[in-house]
């Protein structure tokens, strides 16, 4: 019994307050997931309509667009990583970063250099700690991404993509790594290639048998495509951010739940040890008294 009863009691108290905090965080994350999912659902119609429109143009006009053309000899690739701003979400950020490193390795094997674009403080800190350079980073919105930020990120990536080879910061491919929200229990880090665009492939591709009508384009198919594609890119980035935020909250809820469970376990364990210590103290006191009485009795018996 290394510690006294008082010290065990203090420990129990501190674990109890930790438990209260983790429990609160768990509940907050749980309530926010619902909101995050609602936001993701609310943005679905826009993505769906946009995908329909883009596939319509792509199907009914043979227009080549800079955003859909592959570079002959890709030299550089941009990778956008969507991480969280805050920790305490278990392996959430590290698994996205791991997935990003895997992708980076693959790209390097193909002979491409990589420009990093990072969302979220955790990702930024990861790169800063390793003294690796980031082209741009955006922080402060991971649990509530707005369309404005997605459009800002989209602009930056499209600008980099549209630069000619040889220009500074030119990239020939753009990839996005984010965490896909499958369900409350599973979220998986996913890497997708954003640019050059492969149209039809998408989150809300039109269903089969959904015949696309013969469209009139105003002012022209090229102009419509010019306007549509950047928005399509932005909407996909927005989608990735929304998914990432729902995943972050789910990961946090799970991490905090296991922290709460662990705290409960710890409290139980410390309570047992504390009780043992208390009992040991009592036993010792009794045996001291009994010993003292015996010694007195012995002494008295000897003197008589």
């Amino acid at each position, binding site marked *: 019994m290394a510690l006294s009863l008082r010290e065990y009691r203090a420990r129990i108290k501190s674990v109890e307050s930790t438990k209260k905090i983790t429990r609160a965080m768990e509940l907050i994350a749980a309530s926010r997931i619902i909101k995050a999912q609602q936001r993701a659902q609310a943005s679905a119609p826009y993505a769906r*309509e*946009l995908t*329909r*429109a883009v596939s319509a143009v792509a199907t009914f006009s043979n227009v080549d667009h800079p955003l859909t053309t592959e570079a002959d000899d890709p030299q550089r690739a941009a990778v956008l990583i969507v991480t969280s701003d805050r920790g305490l979400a278990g392996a959430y950020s590290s698994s996205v970063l791991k997935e990003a490193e895997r992708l980076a390795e693959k790209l390097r094997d193909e002979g491409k250099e990589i420009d990093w674009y990072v969302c979220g403080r955790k990702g930024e800190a990861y790169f800063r700690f390793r003294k690796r350079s980031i082209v741009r980073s955006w922080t402060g919105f991971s649990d509530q991404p707005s*369309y404005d930020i997605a*459009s800002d990120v989209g602009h930056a990536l499209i600008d980099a993509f549209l630069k000619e080879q040889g220009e500074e910061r030119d990239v020939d491919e753009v990839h996005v790594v984010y965490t896909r929200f499958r369900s409350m229990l599973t979220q998986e880090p996913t890497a997708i290639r954003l640019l050059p665009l492969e149209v039809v492939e998408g989150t809300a591709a039109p269903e089969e048998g959904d015949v696309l009508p013969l*469209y009139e384009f105003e*002012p022209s198919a090229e102009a419509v495509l010019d306007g549509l594609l950047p928005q399509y890119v932005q909407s996909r980035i*927005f989608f990735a951010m929304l998914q990432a935020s729902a995943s972050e909250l789910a990961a946090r809820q799970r991490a905090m739940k296991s922290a709460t469970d662990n705290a409960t376990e710890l409290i139980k364990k410390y309570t047992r040890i504390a009780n043992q210590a208390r009992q040991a103290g009592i036993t010792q006191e009794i045996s001291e008294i009994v010993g003292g009485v015996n010694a007195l009795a012995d002494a008295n018996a000897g003197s008589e």
Partner: protein
Amino acid sequence: MAGSEGALQVELVAADRTVWSGHATMVIARTVEGDVGILRGHAPLLSLLTDAVVEITDEEGDVVVAAVDGGFLSVAADRVSILSERAVLAEEIDIDAARAELERVPDGEIAEGETERRIRRAEVRIRAAEKAR
């Protein structure tokens, strides 16, 4: 779509939400080429919009007014979708905020780039809000 034979199915969608959706008899919007009115049976059309007011006449004859900033209009098989990153219904517009936005730019100064866009947006909002009155 029971009871709505011969109506347009209209969806006005912003990037993060559906602003208005329902059946309508007519949609008026301003594309980069000029105003277009869409009735039932319109040919499939995909067009770019400018910062302007969109009017949707619903089946009861009430007019829904909204302000959009850019975006698209797509018409196919009596389905009209209006997509705009930021679309707002007239009754949601904070007219005072839009006016304040407009007044922030000093008179006589030629606005360019982002400022010009902001002014145009504010003007559209004010127009939409006044039209809805």
